[in-house]
């Protein structure tokens, strides 16, 4: 038997009382017809030779109010009332926790600005006639990260992000290929990879005609060759 488990604040001295408590619990059943528990306990004391120091009825009702001696001094432990659980202090702690939690949310949101000082994801890129057949236009590369390529029957917008690790390849006109300076990946004019570590072709962006007849490019929508998306009518512009 480990009385410390039951009443952590009350050490050794109470062991006896604890034991007697159990005995009294058993005898209580016998003399349960008695209306007055205090009288009951007094009777017990008279009967029982191993007399407890503490009156027996009490520790059952208010175990925490027992007086326990620790060395020279002694302590009283206030009983915790059920209603006092919802005290102002509890409310204060809840409010504090909520406020702190909210602030962590604010901190997270703070890292995502509402306005970006970046080139737009959607933009107009002039008229189809501005682009001559067979040319790779590199003028939009610096600002928008797009190559506009016009072949004999279509115009498409290639992403300038290398599919290996995300560097920016260069268009080498004489060699008729895109070449990445980081690790040497090479892409054909169509965007298909043919040398170096790049695992898949360059991506194409959504390209449509705006109401005023200009080319409209939407970078938020990408088309990957290996997923068969280059046949999507919005991945190229028929001319």
């Amino acid at each position: 038997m480990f009385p410390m488990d039951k009443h952590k604040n009350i050490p050794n001295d109470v062991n006896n009382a604890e034991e007697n408590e159990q005995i009294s619990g058993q005898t209580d059943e016998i003399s349960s017809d008695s209306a007055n528990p205090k009288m009951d306990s007094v009777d017990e004391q008279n009967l029982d030779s191993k007399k407890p120091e503490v009156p027996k009825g009490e520790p059952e009702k208010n175990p925490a109010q027992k007086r326990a001696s620790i060395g020279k001094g002694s302590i009283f432990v206030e009983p915790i009332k059920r209603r006092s659980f919802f005290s102002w202090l509890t409310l204060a702690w809840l409010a504090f926790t909520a406020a702190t939690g909210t602030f962590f949310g604010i901190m997270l949101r703070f890292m995502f600005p509402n306005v970006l000082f970046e080139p737009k994801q959607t933009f107009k890129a002039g008229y189809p006639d501005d682009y001559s057949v067979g040319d790779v236009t590199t003028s939009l590369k610096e600002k928008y990260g797009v190559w506009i390529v016009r072949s004999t029957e279509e115009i498409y917008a290639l992403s300038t992000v290398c599919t290996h690790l995300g560097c920016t390849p260069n268009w080498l006109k004489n060699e008729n290929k895109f070449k990445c300076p980081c690790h040497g990946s090479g892409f054909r004019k169509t965007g298909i990879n043919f040398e170096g570590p790049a695992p898949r072709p360059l991506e194409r962006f959504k390209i449509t005609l705006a109401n005023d007849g200009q080319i409209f490019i939407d970078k938020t929508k990408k088309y990957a060759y290996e997923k068969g998306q280059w046949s999507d009518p919005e991945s190229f512009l028929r001319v």
Partner: protein
Amino acid sequence: MAKDQKGKKRGFISRLGDSQVWKSIIRTGVPRNRRGRMFSVLNSVFLHLHPVRMPRHAVRLKYTWCAGGLSFYIFCVLTITGILLMFYYRPTVEYAYTDIMDLSEQVPLGIMREIHRWAAHLMVITVWIHMFRVFMTGSYKPPREFNWMVGVILLVLTLLLSFTGYLLPWDQLAIWAITVGTNMARATPFLGHEGPGAALLSIGDINLVHAGSDVRFALLGGRFVGEAALLRFYVLHCIGFPFIIIIFMAIHFWRIRKDGGITTPV
């Protein structure tokens, strides 16, 4: 009090040791026995991180390689040189690269930036050596398993400091290295917009995790390595990560003492 019991005149140092100023700073006198030594260690905020006593054979260079101590020393060098560099470096696209050039060519001696750079390389090496030593001597076993985990966190923080510092020179190597490095964050499960599970986090047709709201965006402050990324890496490198690593270092050193000092050779 100028004369001692024998009537001899006392020296300056002796009188200094008796003064109130001295005694208010250093409570214990000159330690002359084991108890005195223990008290002087326990009463000093700097010394108390260190064990009071340790076995003679545990401090053999052959056993520890002094890798942990060297790592801390290099961290101190990096902190001092880093603060000095901050007087000249401006973390903007316009000035960052030229300020680095200025630091190595015009600023007196031109060596402060090189010390910082070489010390940074060296710290990564010594931290790994320390890790290796701790592993090989079995010092990660109970009761030191918690401190091993703190050590793993310190290793990660060291690498993060190294990574964030890499961008600051703002040359081609830096920009593309960080571009490649942060592209990994795209593939973070649920948090990166190209990672597994990111497509599940959506309301109807609207993706919650896209290129403008994922973990890579939080790191770069944009969709590519630009002005915002430079500033974020600068703040993390100079304030954020050093602040965190110092807290964990304090825990690490203190726990060595509390776990019974360093391990001893079998």
